[in-house]
């Protein structure tokens, strides 16, 4: 499962760690063990994604010259990234690592992810959605290969929308009117949650509005977290918060689970993958949810951002980059790989290789969404992904500072615009200490 993993899958991954750790300790599960035995090249692969074991098994069954040893690791925020960084520092990183989009530039700069420009053939390039590959390409060099790309969509409670006479909003203005209407008609319900732990959601809103938090076009990292489109988005949500038209709490929390479970929140704005996560987490709400495109700022030129999604990188330590690349290419572009992944459970991940969409569509049980063909919707939305976006070199840190500040806003201190500025101020020292050329554009 790509993007933000559900808590359940994180727990499962964490529970699996001691076991896989022990197994790999016996077999020496690191780069040192990736050795050529006869004609077989053995490589190692770390991932927190669900279904990875099934993918690796399918690969090993069908390949003779390359064999993959898989190790389940915790998801990034739960220690997976720290594990990868420390392993790379100690010189025993796996051959293939899983990195989410926001962290790709950081790992590229740290020299963990290898420059694989020459290993990514034209065939693979053509198979991938350009906007997805654009997020892993810097200065014309490719540092990782996208597995899935997740346009943000609006998940909504069709039954409650009917009850309150609503239709999915096409514009953000309409969305704000609906938020006010929901609060008037049902004082304990809200149209949507503003997540205090949601830098990735906020980034996605800003992305859609045309923001460029990071820009490398002039040979330096230009940072402008509070650019005009971002401020517009911040002011918009600040208005909703000030009028008490939205919930404001963490989305990764029991409180949020209760809001969704008890039908208190009518829409969820998140990536395409969340459709499958919702099915797994709340089977009882079958038939109540539908999915619609995001509200737009300008319906004349619609745009969306992405929320979630993972990529695969070959590490700089890898002694078999070609073999690693062969595995990655198969994993992101072969129908059998996606089928194997889906065999581990329902997933609605949107593949970065559009050729695989039909595999996902065929495997997906539509009854939860009342028979809606959500993949066709995702396909349309993926075309609208804004191409201007780049993630920054220390996104985990930027994320923490911004979210800490969001949390204070929910406690009545400061504003969302100030949170953006705080995040920028908390990011710059990091970039400077790394010795990067930086410029700031903060207004």
């Amino acid at each position, binding site marked *: 499962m790509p993007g933000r993993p559900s808590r359940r899958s994180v727990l499962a991954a964490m529970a699996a760690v001691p076991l896989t750790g022990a197994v790999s300790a016996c077999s020496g599960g690191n780069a040192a063990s990736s050795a050529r035995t006869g004609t077989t090249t053995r490589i190692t692969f770390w991932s927190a994604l669900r279904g990875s074991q099934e993918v690796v098994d399918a690969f090993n069954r069908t390949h003779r010259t390359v064999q993959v040893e898989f190790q389940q690791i915790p998801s990034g925020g739960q220690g997976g990234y720290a594990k990868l960084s420390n392993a790379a520092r100690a010189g025993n990183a796996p051959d293939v690592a899983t990195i989410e989009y926001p962290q790709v530039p950081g790992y590229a700069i740290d*020299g963990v992810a290898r420059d694989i420009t020459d290993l990514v053939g034209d065939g693979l390039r053509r198979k991938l959605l350009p906007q997805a590959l654009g997020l892993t390409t810097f200065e014309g060099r490719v540092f990782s290969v996208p597995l899935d790309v997740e346009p943000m969509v609006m998940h909504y409670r069709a039954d409650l929308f009917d009850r309150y006479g609503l239709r999915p909003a096409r514009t953000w203005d309409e969305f704000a009117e609906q938020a006010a209407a929901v609060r008037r008609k049902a004082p304990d319900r809200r149209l949507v949650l503003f997540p205090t732990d949601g830098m990735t959601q906020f980034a996605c809103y800003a992305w859609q509005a045309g923001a460029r938090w990071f820009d490398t076009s002039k040979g330096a*990292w230009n940072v402008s977290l509070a650019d005009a489109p971002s401020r517009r988005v911040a002011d918009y949500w600040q208005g909703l918060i000030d009028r008490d038209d939205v919930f404001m709490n963490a989305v990764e929390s029991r409180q949020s689970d209760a809001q969704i479970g008890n039908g208190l929140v009518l829409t969820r704005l998140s990536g395409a993958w969340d459709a499958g996560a919702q099915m797994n987490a709340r089977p009882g709400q079958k038939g109540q949810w539908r999915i619609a495109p995001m509200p737009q700022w300008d319906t004349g030129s619609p745009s969306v951002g992405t929320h979630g999604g993972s990529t695969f990188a070959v590490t700089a330590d890898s002694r078999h980059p070609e073999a690693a690349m062969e595995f990655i290419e198969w994993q992101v572009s072969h129908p059998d790989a996606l089928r194997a992944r889906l065999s581990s459970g329902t997933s609605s991940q949107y593949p970065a290789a559009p050729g695989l969409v039909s595999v996902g569509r065929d495997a997906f049980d539509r009854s939860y969404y009342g028979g809606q063909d959500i993949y066709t919707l995702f396909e349309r939305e993926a075309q609208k992904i804004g191409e201007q976006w780049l993630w920054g070199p220390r996104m*985990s840190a930027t994320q923490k*500072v911004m979210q*800490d500040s969001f949390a204070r806003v929910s406690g009545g201190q400061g504003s969302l615009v100030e949170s953006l500025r705080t995040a920028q101020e908390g990011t710059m*020292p990091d970039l400077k*200490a*790394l010795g990067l050329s930086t410029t700031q554009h903060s207004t």
Partner: protein
Amino acid sequence: MTTTIRTRVPAGASPAAAAPSASGPRARRAARRRQLTAAGVLMTPFFVLLVTVFLIPVGTAVYLSFFSDDQPGLGFGPERTVFVGLRSYAAVLTDPTFLGGLGTVALYCLIYIPLMVVGALALALLLDSGVVRLRAFAQLGLFLPHAVPGIIAALIWLYLYTPGISPVIELFAQADVTIDFLGVHTVVPSIVNIALWSNLGYNMVVFYAALQAVPREVIEASVVDGAGPVRTALQVKTPLVRASIVMVSIFTLIWALQLFTEPMLLSQSSPMISSRFSPSMYIYDAAFTRNNYGLAAAASVVLLVCTIALSYGVTRFTSRADVSREAR
């Protein structure tokens, strides 16, 4: 190896200076040598520890703060290790989140240290005055929390502070008082409370031991001169345990500047505690989530320098006070 040399150098210097006067008996020289060997052997473990757990880490931190694996421009080029001068220090000292952490810890010290020193001293004076019955029991009860490891203490208090599961908050709620121990303004006092609970008993014992050493005849003289118990405590006993007060203050200050465990754990349940709440948390975050070892090292050195400067300041301030008192 270096440690033995180090220990011998200053020790070896004195017999050389003393040699002319002790010109002669071989036995005395042999005894001297035995003494030196014993001193060397006995002090070696200390210096080995000093070097391995203090000097080497400090040296590494200083090195990491001045050198960095750099790539020019956007950072995607090949790495090379270069001397970066004060770049990491400039970054740390212009980082509002680090300065905010220093501010937080300063506020924490301002609340915590006076409360701790005055509280521990007051308890020790009470116990010493004999007002308290069941002295041993009271002493044990106050000291016990110190035996609880910091992380466990933080867990206990986390339970008591978390709305929904805390019996304390529920009790207040029944009296129609809403209290949020982890709110914007209450979070520092809440951490101070944990620290006080953990350390009050320990410092009280330090003071109590010092009070035991106050000569009884001084107390008797003050009683004969007509001093009441309060006056005896404040104007006779307290000045006599000055040295302990200074020592406790310095130790408490050093401990407080390294504030880490409690906020780290409480941050799990309060968004008001950010990942860079205190300088120590900033250092941890810089090294392990931001993967920015230069920044973490520079911040560590800054914290070390602050700690040394403040400790030195406290010592100087109190010794100057001593001098001026003697002059009077």
